[in-house]
């Protein structure tokens, strides 16, 4: 069934960042150093947005990844009317979830990071920034590549629960955090990436659709590796 369409996709990981229009860009050299530790700061944010980074800087790594992945697609939904943004759903799938922040909070409890000890907080951050009020879903799965999310989003669209769905696949686990309590690496993989895909119906997309099947991470990375502008 080809009744659904990908409107846009984004990806960011240690190798670079971008969306399906612009393609993947390598991080500028001066910013690469922090990336090996999974640290995204205000300078990374400034590559995507001219807006004040103060909110971004309050977030944990998981939220920063989701927030940036959504920002890379924002042109697709920031011009929608408020009524249509009530029908834009947001869902996230992850394996590690908020564990990186959980460990930090367990080591040093601070009220400012407690709200980030939930994997669904990234949905709240994105909804606040882009004023999205549609249905929400937050899944934790044994796969780190968003194996279930496209199926869930497809059901929402076919059942009429949403007009468009922003699907996020995020993994955020700093090596140093995981090692600080000796979590076994085979059960708790280290590393980080963020991927976002805007799924909808063909009639709602402002531009050419791209065909793809598969898992969220793979779909997003592939679409960003072969951008439309490069074709």
């Amino acid at each position, binding site marked *: *069934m*080809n009744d*659904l*369409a*990908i409107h846009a996709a984004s990806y960011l990981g240690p190798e670079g960042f971008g969306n399906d229009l612009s393609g993947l860009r390598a991080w500028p050299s001066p910013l690469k150093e922090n990336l090996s530790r999974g640290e995204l700061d205000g300078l990374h944010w400034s590559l995507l947005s001219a807006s004040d980074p103060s909110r971004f800087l309050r977030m944990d790594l998981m939220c920063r990844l989701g927030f940036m992945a959504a920002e890379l697609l924002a042109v697709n939904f920031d011009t929608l009317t408020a009524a249509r943004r*009530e029908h834009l759903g*947001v869902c996230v799938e992850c*394996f590690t*979830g908020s*564990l990186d922040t*959980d*460990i930090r*909070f*367990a080591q040093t*409890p601070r*009220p400012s990071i*407690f*709200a980030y*000890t*939930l*994997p*669904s*907080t990234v*949905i*709240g*951050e994105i*909804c*606040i920034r882009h*004023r*999205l*009020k*549609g*249905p*929400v*879903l*937050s*899944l*934790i*799965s*044994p796969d780190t590549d968003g194996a279930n999310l*496209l*199926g*869930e989003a*497809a*059901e929402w669209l*076919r059942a009429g*629960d949403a007009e468009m769905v922003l699907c996020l696949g995020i993994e955020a686990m700093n090596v140093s955090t995981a090692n600080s*309590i*000796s*979590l*076994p690496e085979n*059960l*708790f993989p280290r590393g980080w990436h963020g991927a976002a895909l805007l*799924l909808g119906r*063909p009639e709602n997309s402002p531009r050419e*659709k*791209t*065909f*793809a*099947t598969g898992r969220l991470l793979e779909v997003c990375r592939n679409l960003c590796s072969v951008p439309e502008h490069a074709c």
Partner: protein
Amino acid sequence: MGIAVETAVNQSAIAIAGCGAVCATGLGMEPLQHAVAANASALQRRELVIGKTSQPIVAGFVADEIIGKLRAADAAHADSRAFLFTSAALKEAANNAATILDFVPANRRGFVLSTTKANIEALDKLVRQQPVSAVAQRQIQPAFLAADLAAAFACCGPVQCVSAACISGLSALQQGAALIRRGLADVIFVVGVDVISQFVLSGFNALKSLDPDGCRPFDQARLGLSLGEGAAAIVLAKRELLSSPAILISGAGTSNDANHLTGPSRDGSGLALAIQRALAKAQIAPGQIDYVHAHGTGTPYNDAMESLTLRAVFGDHVPPFSSSKGIFGHTLGTAGVLETALCVAALKNNFLPGTPRLRERDPVAPDSLLVEPREEANLNCILKINCGFGGTNAALVLERELP
């Protein structure tokens, strides 16, 4: 071109085949129903160490005797209360659904876990360099806890874990129903769990969200919430597997406030959206709702927001409503499942729960707030609502089939 994702959506209602619970009221649905009928609070005051200081905490603790009994029966999971609680609730729910489970093969049984923090106690111990078993350490990760439970209960169909703050339970029930509608399973075990831990106490204590004397939902002088712990399980099934009259999940909806991370929107419009979505799915009008089981945490902002929402959705005819968190506390990832199980019991036994610990109703709350439980002969349709951090809202419609 489009994306090819195979789903076959069947919009039929999903039936509830069995429920189970372990919480501050005890082990099983029966002590829970007795506490609700008596409008009795099971909250207790204990002196606990949070961080480096000891302080009194009023919360819904699972009794030590019950924990001891569960540990004795399952030594392999002795240091994973999350596993022990969920197993106990699942066993009861499975027993109650035994008549249909005998006919459903393992590959048609799915599993959905609802939790905010899974076996977070193991993380607390690791950070303090205390011994933790390999099993308990593995179950820090919610996906592994879900997989271990699914295996223990012979669920070889789809396995999912929902972690969406305090709407996790309702979202998990919605997911379970969706998996059956999509033809991926005939039966889904939905179980919610969370435990009171250093981690969770530290967080809510730091946010100053806890009422030092215990929560008083919808009370004029309410100061905050009381945490609770435990597990609750609900077996969902294809409607055709149960005889009439069944209790159905006929609609569900979620939304986001897009307003604030740790506080609800002041006008209740986000929760109203979730309710409207659930009612639309159930194809019923607001006037058909006989009772609303509120989130009712006892925090000043939450309860005020819910009151506004109920007025916005129901106008001058707000149905009877109440909060049960004065009985067992706010059980976080368990809440949606536990409170739905309570609503199922209400539909089966024709009673409406009260709002224990309430002294003086907040004038903002609609007059239909139930202080005491009561019998209700014409109880057919219940609306269950929950809200959570991140601005999330969820609503679920339960209906008793007419014979």
